[in-house]
């Protein structure tokens, strides 16, 4: 590529972006007077796995994006990104949510738990994680973090579910390997019941 051209492009880009930034500020300060109540601030605190994390979040940003690309918590997977597959399942105040379809700004005052927050301080796995290993539940493993979170939420609420109750509770998590029964075996084992 012609270096002259790329330098020119680079300089143009710099000018354009600083102009945008400047006009952005102007727009912002003009609006500050007449800002409608309810507008959001970008720099927020999140409670993730018991820790307070300060993070810069765009208004339209999804929690899965914030977790993976800003907080480094890549255990939460993005599968369909449409709230259909469940790979991005996290717990918010103990309840399962699709983090790809949750606005990060919507969880500011709430407690988020991801798969990274499950193991004990000494590295001992959560009983659900251990049971999934013992039962060889995952095949490719991509849906596993989501499956783990759904199982954890179920057992927190109902420590000894029937297999049918477990099936219902896990029904929002797809597994393209089709290892559903293996995951159910894992849930039953984690609940201390023989599958």
């Amino acid at each position: 590529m012609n270096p002259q051209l790329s330098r020119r492009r680079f300089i143009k880009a710099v000018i354009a972006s600083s102009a945008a930034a400047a006009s952005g500020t102007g727009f912002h300060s003009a609006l500050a007077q007449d800002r409608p109540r309810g507008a959001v601030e970008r720099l927020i605190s999140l409670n993730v796995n018991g820790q307070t994390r300060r993070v810069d979040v765009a208004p339209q940003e999804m929690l899965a994006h914030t977790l993976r690309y800003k907080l480094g918590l890549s255990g939460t997977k993005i599968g369909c990104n449409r709230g259909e597959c469940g790979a991005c399942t996290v717990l918010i105040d103990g309840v399962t949510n699709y983090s790809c379809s949750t606005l990060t700004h919507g969880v500011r005052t709430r407690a988020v738990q991801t798969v990274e927050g499950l193991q004990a301080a000494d590295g001992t796995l959560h009983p659900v994680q251990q049971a999934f290993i013992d039962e060889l539940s995952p095949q490719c493993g991509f849906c596993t973090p989501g499956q783990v979170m759904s199982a954890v939420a179920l057992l927190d609420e109902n420590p000894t579910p029937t297999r049918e109750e477990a099936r219902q509770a896990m029904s929002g998590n797809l597994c393209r390997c089709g290892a559903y029964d293996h995951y159910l075996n894992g849930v039953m084992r984690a609940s201390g019941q023989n599958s």
Partner: protein
Amino acid sequence: MASFDVMPDVQLYQPAELDDALNLAERFGDSGWLVGGGQDTYGWLKDRAKNPQAMIELNGIDALSGISETDDGIEIGATTTLREIIRDERINRDYSLLAQAAGRVASPQIRNVGTLAGNLVQDARCWYYRRGLACYRAGGNICYADGPESMNREHAVFGASRCVAVSPSDTATALVALEARMIAESTSGRRSIAAEDFFVGPDTHITQMTSLKDDEILVAVRIPSKWAGKRFYFEKVADRDVWDFALVSVAVAMSMDGDTIADSRFVCGGVACTPHRLTNVEKAARGKALSEESAEAVAGLASAGAKPLNYNHFKLPLMENLVRRAMRG
């Protein structure tokens, strides 16, 4: 059309008071988008099939959430989640029809955040429309679902007018059966709309599914005590048990006089653009006992007047069979 992984640049407002939300709704009009659980919202935005300027998230408004008793029945706040409805003791005791319908919506994760109002006002699931094509419903002048080659297995058999999409909401059928009223509010005041008039077909308004105006917010649903504790029947038939919309669903409320039906409401979902009342069946069911015989006698009326498309003839016997099952007792 390209598919995107990230949300477009859109403003977000999280008002804490209803008045602020109403002001925002008025200020943005049709370029504002009300968000509850957001499960119908984000797909539209990620696909760039709809491009609002601002999202107005209502979950922070306490006044919009919760279930309370009224003089005559109950009131459910707009942002009450389906999870709360499914687990509510009073609803399970008196209006179990609604709890059953809510329990069949989508998947556990979606029921955990999905709100009653969001389930009621969700947009049509026609994939041609969802794809962002300029069909009638999107303001264009063609229907892609109603042609010789169109895939219209899930589409309407009643009440189509240019657009052939169906009402996707499970809770809507239950609320029409229960004769609920919708409370809509704007900066100029409140109005109460019968559930049956709340949902509108394409002959009335082709680009929207409800009679809500741009600056209005659905703030609550009131269920009268008329059908409290009566006999209910709900069944939803879908290709999959989870995360699927009804091919046909039926919500039935019956008040019994001894062994016979004194009065009833039969409402089908998935067959028309609005929850579809089976008034013929209701008339014929009056005075009949719940039995195989009466099921046989009224079932055929369910599909009377239907106009099926190329691939959805199966909905007719399906409707009849659901009515038959409701009438067997």
